[in-house]
């Protein structure tokens, strides 16, 4: 129980720590730091006007322009992606992680993810081009659904699947084997489950 409490506390502290910071500034415009970018941009020959268009405000009052830039002078994703994302122009040291700048990863899903059948077919594309998945997702993203059991969410099988699974297993056992070794069957059918049979 002590171990349990320690782990719970660690998770809670971590969650609070992450959450409190994050809500303050996790947008592309809010995250941008001139201090970090000044040197590499200067080295690459970029000037202020390459990103910001309203030169008159900046010339007159830099502080005011800076305050305004977060919302009104934010140059847009094309400018950021020029160094951080685009293969042809990306600067080696520029972080490429989407989550580095984007608050809402859901909002920047690629076109393929918007298709209605994406949930059904995503495995096909994942097999074809795993590197593309890794651009935004780590392996845990797959495991988060594929290794959960008995969740309230219907992640892999219908909710009534426990009742009808034997029929499908007799039709297509090769599909069962893609995820389950035989022990998964034996545990239930040998009566090992002590609480739920």
């Amino acid at each position, binding site marked *: 129980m002590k171990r349990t409490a320690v782990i719970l506390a660690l998770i809670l502290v971590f969650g609070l720590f992450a959450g409190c910071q994050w809500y303050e500034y996790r947008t592309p415009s809010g995250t941008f730091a001139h201090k970090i970018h000044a040197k590499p941009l200067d080295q690459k020959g970029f000037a202020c006007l390459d990103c910001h268009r309203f030169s008159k405000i900046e010339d007159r009052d830099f502080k005011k322009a800076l305050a305004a830039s977060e919302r009104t002078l934010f140059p847009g994703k094309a400018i950021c992606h020029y160094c951080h994302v685009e293969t042809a122009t990306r600067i080696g040291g520029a972080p490429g992680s989407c989550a580095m700048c984007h608050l809402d990863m859901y909002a920047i899903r690629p076109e393929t993810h918007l298709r209605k059948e994406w949930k059904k077919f995503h495995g096909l594309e994942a097999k074809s081009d795993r590197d593309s998945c890794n651009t935004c997702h780590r392996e*845990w993203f797959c495991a988060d659904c594929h290794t959960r059991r008995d969740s*309230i969410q219907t992640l892999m099988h219908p909710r009534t699947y426990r009742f009808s699974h034997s029929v499908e297993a007799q039709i297509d056992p090769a599909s069962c084997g893609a995820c389950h070794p035989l022990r998964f069957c034996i545990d239930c059918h040998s009566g090992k489950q002590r609480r739920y049979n």
Partner: protein
Amino acid sequence: MTPLVHRRPGPWAITVVAVLVMLAQACPLFGAEVSGKFSSLFQSRENKDGDRESVLDNYLSLDAERILHPAVSMHAYGKFGHDFDANFSDTSLYYGYLEYRTHEGRADIQLGRFPLSTHRFLTVDGMNVSLKPDGPVGVAVFGGASRNLDLDPDRFKRLFSTNEGTIYGGRLFLQGIERTRAYAGYSWEGSGDTVYQELFSGGVGRDFQSILLGKELKISVDGSADYNLDRADLDKMSARLFTYYDKKLRVLLEADLYDVKNEFPEGRELVLSILSDGREERTFYTVFYDLNPIVAIYQSSVFTRLKMPDGGWQTGTILKGGVSGNFIEQMGLDLDLGIYRFESFIADATGISTKIRWRPHNKWILEGGLEAVSINTPSRQDQTATTITGEVGYRPKPTLKAALFVEQSDNPEFRSDFRTGMRLDYDFSFPAGRNLTAGEGR
């Protein structure tokens, strides 16, 4: 046969998670891009016999990138669960590894417990090295102890148990050739002199793009084969065709042939090798068509032939179809209605599944669902199982969602129960150690 060994997640697993969490907190020392997800699910259920089960499951994933060096990162994903009625806790580390990955994965080294996709999905305690040098061919080698995610007999715990075997292998793959894929690989899995499975695998694929009747047509063709060196025969062959036409029609055709015989230890055998002679022939297709931007229909069929131990063949069919509607922009509603039918040599099953999701407000999500399946066997009366669910979700931020749910299940053969609970999903990311609090660093 080597006995199956289960290992409880020891203190080391907890230590790794704790160290990762602390590293994330102490990142001002190192600097890192930290991101991940925390997911918590509490559910309480009462079985028909009056038994009660109250369980809390927490999942935490952590990715800390650019630690010390831009190419170095740490990744972990684990679960902590607690059964309040049994007063029992369980901690599992699903993945936990250190990674060195240079720009665009030119060199990628993983060390620790990591997922590995070879001829099947694996979790390996070991090392994986992938190199993409200049030129059309990349190379990857891996080795370690393979792990299997098992279910504990009381169904609460998840165990990463081992079959006491090791796995190693490698793969050559094509790279940098547009719209073309190819690989050739080798893997050996066994223990001592016992070979569980020794495979030579190969596959090719290509994407085609054209205009047909003035509409865009995309076709992807893939083929692969696993050759079992130990028994000098094919384990699996697969061919797949995916067609995407006019942004409305998607068709997937696939044909697979399995002929598996292996020496996996007891309990680790492939399901196919027990429910048949190890040979299955399967063809299937799925058609998905957008009637309009809101409503889509789909239909899929699976046809199989199984070779039984007595030498005879059994056939089976799975038919599925349905309609999905996306009225999010009109009324915040999306719904799915599906029906299916299984026809096997032991029984037939007919089922229906409906799901509806309504967003009356951008922060509130209401979900409901109904499922029913009826099984017909020659030897006994028809039986039907049903499940009805409801959920109220609240999403104050794009990456934070809390929900209350309720589910009623009636199952004639297994437990019927009524469960209630709540869940919380929270995505986070922050540049720790980069001095990027609001307004600073500018």
